[in-house]
């Protein structure tokens, strides 16, 4: 197989900040966040009442995830009508809650002694979104729906890269969508992982995450095809790394051992050195356990070069979008590579000494960004890191 260079030629974002890419990016650079009062779910007994909500409503027989994912895909396509062999178009999606709100409603109906809508509930599997996106682009090629919890969509981007780099596909759509639901809200709440205030990644007094929703879709193509059709090229994908902690069902390895291996694998696969990295779009959940361990992982993987990188967390803008979180982190890195600006980590006024990296507090930072790593870590000790490079036209 001949290796192709893989470039990103489309990016669509539906977020709690804005329903489009540029609106979201502008708001991020201005230091705005999309966190506000929780209204989508009626959970008055929950101590935390903050979430990153997207002002969209799905059509009948459609989940919010599908609705947001399709909107993000439309923006990523930007009028492009994929042609050629439909079997060489692939769909790779990371899912989190997906059809869970429908299942919750069904269970509630059954507990109340009512019949419920079984047919519709059984239809709403996580791959329903993947199928809808495939239908939109006319794909008859590979599809997969990965559920690695919070690293799902970043791994989906890695899968898409794998298929393009080996010359198997001409176009891949990768990303993720996530909507708020009671199971995740109640779950993180009972784990005492939710902050009742707006979350503060990398801060000394960080007290947990806020949940969020949204969708990101990315188009990946071989460089030669992208050039041939005159596509806008946002960035180049160089590879990814993945690992397991084998440490704890929910907590990360305290010294970031597994995460560091994922970062190192991404660098090795992509053929870059630590000194080539200028940005890490971090998992940065604002939970006490994650942020310190992640900074240690970055130090382990990058060594002395860690002191020169900028780190940022999109969780401070959108909350934790779970299955879509990795794709949100990737989107922030892609746009940072394009604009040569790092989006800020909001509310980082008192950094944790454990997080002794430049975590881009409060304000966006203009700087040279040659290459970026994106992190997404998950329950089960699943770690994924994606390696992106600035597109300089060569």
């Amino acid at each position, binding site marked *: 197989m001949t290796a192709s260079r893989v470039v990103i030629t489309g990016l669509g974002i539906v977020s709690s900040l804005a329903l489009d890419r540029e609106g979201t990016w502008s708001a991020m650079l201005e230091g705005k966040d999309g966190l506000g009062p929780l209204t989508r779910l009626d959970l008055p007994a929950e101590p935390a009442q903050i979430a990153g909500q997207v002002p969209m409503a799905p059509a009948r027989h459609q989940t919010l995830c599908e609705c947001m994912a399709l909107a993000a895909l439309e923006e990523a396509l930007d009028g492009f009508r994929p042609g050629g062999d439909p079997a060489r178009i692939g769909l790779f999606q990371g899912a989190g809650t997906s059809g869970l709100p429908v299942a919750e409603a069904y269970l509630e109906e059954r*507990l109340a002694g009512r019949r419920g809508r079984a047919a519709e509930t059984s239809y709403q599997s996580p791959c329903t979104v993947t199928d809808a996106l495939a239908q939109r682009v006319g794909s008859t090629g590979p599809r*997969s729906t990965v559920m690695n919890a919070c690293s799902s969509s970043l791994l989906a981007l890695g899968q898409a890269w794998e298929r393009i780099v080996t010359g198997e596909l001409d176009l891949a759509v990768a990303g993720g969508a996530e909507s708020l639901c009671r199971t995740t809200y109640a779950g993180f709440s009972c784990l005492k992982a939710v902050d009742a205030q707006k979350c503060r990644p990398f801060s000394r007094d960080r007290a947990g995450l806020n949940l969020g929703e949204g969708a990101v879709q990315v188009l990946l193509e071989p460089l030669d095809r992208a050039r041939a059709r005159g596509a806008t090229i946002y960035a180049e994908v160089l590879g990814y790394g*993945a690992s*397991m902690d084998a440490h704890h069902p929910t907590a990360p390895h305290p010294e970031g051992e597994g995460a560091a291996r994922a970062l190192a694998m991404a660098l090795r696969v992509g053929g870059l050195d630590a000194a080539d990295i200028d940005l890490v779009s971090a998992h940065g959940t604002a939970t006490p356990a994650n942020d310190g361990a992640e900074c240690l992982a970055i130090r382990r993987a990058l060594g002395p070069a860690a002191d020169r990188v900028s780190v940022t967390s999109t969780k401070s803008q959108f909350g934790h979008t779970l299955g879509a979180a990795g794709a949100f982190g990737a989107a922030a890195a892609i746009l940072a590579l394009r604009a040569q600006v790092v989006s800020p980590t909001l509310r980082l006024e008192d950094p944790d000494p454990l997080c002794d990296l430049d975590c881009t507090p409060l304000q966006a930072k203009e700087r040279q960004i040659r290459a970026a790593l994106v992190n997404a870590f998950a329950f089960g000790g699943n770690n994924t890191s994606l390696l992106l490079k600035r597109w300089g036209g060569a």
Partner: protein
Amino acid sequence: MTRPQPELVITGLGLVLPCGDGVAAARASLASGQPCFADLPAALGQGRGAACTAFNPAGIIPPMQLRRLDRPSRFAWVAAHQAFLDAGLDPKPAGERIAVAVGTMTGGSEASEAFMRPYLQRGPEGASPMVFPNCVANAASGHLALAFGLKGPSATFVDRENAAFVALEQAARWLRAGLAEVALVIGTDGLFPVLQDLCLGARLLDRHGDPEIGSGRGFLTGEGAQAFLLEPRARAEARGARPWALLRGLAARSSVAPSEAARAESLAAAVLALGAFSPAFRIGGGNGLTRLDAVEARLAAAHPEWPDVIHPKVLWGELAGSGGPLLAAALLQPAGPVLVTAPASSGVQFAAHLEALRPDP
């Protein structure tokens, strides 16, 4: 850049099925052709299905940990234990080079019901922090990593009836890219009340309690796990392993429209993508529901030269490992080329060409 494509073999097999744990039970079940359906225990749901009632994790999963695991994770743990033993491979020293790819249609769902039922009834007081971590589909892979010290790449796929095939495909990719030396591929599913209730309400279940290919009456659910250790043939030979099968080809095609005709065309294209070969044995993914059976029937009608097909889903139920049982049945065939056709209700249709390498015992 040109990458060599190493041949991949399956050197370890572990099975938890409604017919019992282990290879011998599965062989006997396939030989007898007797379905494993019975009235389900109340804890798993109402009606008939194929439950792993003989499942025995004693001596394999420590009791303290057993309590914390959902059914798919329990099944996966025992199947993985069998597979490592079968392959003669101690996973711990090589943990960083072992990947895990899981396919499951129900992973996380049993726990989600167990978590939400008391929450909906009692509010936050009913929410259990012990149960919530199992609400993710990748809970099993995390438990496997902890149990066996696995630290390589990991992914969990939820692609309906064929999730285990997607997992196998990803595992093969990691091995070929050199990101792992060995991959543990798992198909796992567990039954739970709301699943049974949903399938019944959606009129998917065979109300006669005896699914039959081509009847159009529907399927019955099943549970279990299958574990396959995949490694490059050269590596397996170097360590003296005795492979079950050579993975000669795995192909997937999807259709834009979910219609029966479009899906049949996709399955036919997947078979075509495997290249020409004459299967000595054939395993099919029909389950008694027209949605799947008709797709396979169209394909078989175009190939009258093919051997008779074995349908594991009418023995062990639908789900039961989300495609894993089809791969397991293929490995248990006498030495020779095996064609597996795996139709799906939507998404990707799979076909696999395995060369079974162990003679019939």
